[in-house]
């Protein structure tokens, strides 16, 4: 299936968001992910099912002040 990750089309056979992130070598630690403009809580990444043409934005979280 095809999904969009950070503006780029990605072809994947994976079924969950967690698997997709691992395939793209995106570290879970320190990342936030939004699907179609809404944050997907990290505790649900393993059960979050991928669907055709979903749009994901992956962000690097920062904690400095």
């Amino acid at each position: 299936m095809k999904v969009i990750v950070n503006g780029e089309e990605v072809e994947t056979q994976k079924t969950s968001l967690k698997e997709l992130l691992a395939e793209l070598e995106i570290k879970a630690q320190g990342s936030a992910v939004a699907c179609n403009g809404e944050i997907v809580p990290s505790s649900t990444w393993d059960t979050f099912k991928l669907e055709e043409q979903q749009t994901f934005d992956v962000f690097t979280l920062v904690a400095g002040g």
Partner: protein
Amino acid sequence: MLNDRYLRQSAVTGFENLAQNLSDKRVGIVGLGGLGGLCAYLLVGAGLKNLKLCDFDEVSLSNLHRQVMYDQTSLGLSKAQVLKQRLLNLDESVKVELFPKFEEHNAALFNENLDLILDLTDKVQVRELISDKALSSKVPLIEASVSNTRGQIALFNYKEQNFVKEHGCFRCLAKNMGHMTSPGILGPVASAMASLVALYVMQYFQGQIEAGKIRFIDFLNFKSTEVVLRPDLTCTCQKESS
């Protein structure tokens, strides 16, 4: 003469009454580094008269490239004390209350009578405590942070009845932040982010900001993206709100 102070600000559409609006608000700022120092200065400049400031730290040489409220004469001095004096130099009528550290035992006192809390600290564990206490006190919270060339900012309006159910709390977002540290930071990035926080505060009090969203900014590419916050149903905030 007094009216001249806000003359140019009040000429901006949507901000005509900003100084008057800010004059009776009470804002608490935790963390007086690259974000908190300049942000406090801009807010007092805009008309804020009542602040609670909290930071245990002293000014060090490695702060000076980005923490623009401090200089070589401040080295070794308390950031909170130096900043208070800078704010009084800007507006002698401002009332500033200092807290040495944000902890379990003084959190309720810090949050008392606040209209808004700004969490501009640099440790996730402290941020979680500040969020927990803001939530239990039902005080709106702006969480902003910066590192390297990136920043993020979110408004958690804990005062709104269904906010936590719909958008969660800071802990929901911070679950996989772990023990993040911030090894690098550019001065202009910190100051740009501090200015953005001050603008958010002004827009919040003017009723122009929607809570429950987080904005991620990449200053190097001038790219900014806003997404909706959603709760982590396993977070303690969800048990407490149900």
